[in-house]
């Protein structure tokens, strides 16, 4: 199952891409569905896809032990996650679990990196968006940490 260009245009992450660039995403992505309590990936898993949440609800967290999951946050529709798939060593820094029936767009990270090499402007734009996602996640985590430290 594939999304159309018009459907991609409704997702915030794809703002400011032209139709040709959106076609690249369509060519290297697929839609994946998850049920409640499905684990999309565990912390320290090797990742091959970068995801964008289309519909549903996902929790993100870290594990202290196999049985001890700490939920740090939830993801919003249109948000990118699993960014570790794009960067070496491609190891996830958190786990992600579906908390309701969920659909995600799974973009093949290896193919995405190859597209970056073919089209540097596309690569720079996409890496900038991914960096912004990571920056926001880091800032939010610092904010969360400050809240806990000042309890």
């Amino acid at each position, binding site marked *: 199952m594939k999304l159309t260009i018009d459907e991609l245009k409704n997702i915030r992450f794809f703002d400011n891409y032209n139709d040709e660039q959106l076609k690249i995403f369509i060519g290297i992505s697929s839609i994946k569905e998850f049920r409640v309590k499905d684990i999309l990936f565990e912390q320290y898993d090797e990742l091959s896809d970068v995801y964008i949440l289309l519909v549903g609800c996902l929790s993100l967290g870290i594990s202290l032990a196999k049985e001890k999951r700490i*939920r740090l946050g*939830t993801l*919003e529709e249109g948000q990118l996650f699993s960014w570790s798939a794009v960067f070496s060593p491609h190891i996830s820094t958190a786990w992600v679990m579906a908390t309701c029936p969920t659909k995600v767009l799974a973009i093949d990270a290896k193919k995405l990196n190859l597209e970056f090499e073919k089209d540097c402007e596309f690569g720079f734009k996409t890496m900038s968006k991914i960096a912004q996602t990571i920056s*926001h996640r880091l800032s*939010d985590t610092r*904010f969360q940490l400050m809240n806990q430290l000042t309890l």
Partner: protein
Amino acid sequence: MLNDKNIYKPIRAKLTDVIDESQLIKTFVLVPEDKFSFKTGQFIELSVDGIGEAPFTPSSSPLVTEKLEITVMKTGYVTEYMHMLKPGVYMGIRGPYGRGYPIESFFGKEVLILGGGCGLAPIRSLLYALEGIKDKLVKVILCYGSKTPADCIYKPLFDRLNSTEKFEAYRTVDKADENWNGSVGVATTLLNKIKINIENSVAVVCGPPIMMKFGTIRLLELGYKDDQIYLSMEKNMSCGLGKCGHCMMGEFFVCKDGPVFTYDEIKHNPEIWK
């Protein structure tokens, strides 16, 4: 409405109800002996006989003059005593003081409100005021974060706002419990959820200093200009009249020149987030 005989003399107000909002937060419903009006965002000095006085921003509608609601977090000597008060006693009110929200300048715009913790108290008053002028606004979005679900005050407010035309309300918690199905994360994570036309909007930030700092930074990253962001500053307001200097922040007396400032006005002040 200052007492014209003695600017420091409070107006008597009867405590008619005390509402438990959370473990540490209560709302006090007061009926002043004289009609009492304020502009949303202004603050008052509330006193308890023989105990002391502290500044609070009303959480009730500025359109209602017969009664006043003050939401108080138990944080110190005066507020701890207030939390023990029962309906029937009299308290003192001085004010209102300072500069509130310039809501007339919000006409024709989208209003984004980012709040955290006890900051929802003044925000509730602002929301009441905005509901009164909703025909003149494009939309109002509230993004609010509390530490835990139990710390979230005014829970019915969110459902009511979400069923009010032009209003959207979202909330999140830093730490969820097993019964919580909503968003988890700090208040700024809710900004990933909303759709807003930043060029035609204003943002209001109100909450603890940490939240105000991170919230303002994120709004600037999103593209808000310095003069589009309104901050409600909570400093050590004491006299309320710009005389005692307790609330000085650089060149400003927060009690007189604020407590509402644009970020543009105070961004260079090193004490802004203290």
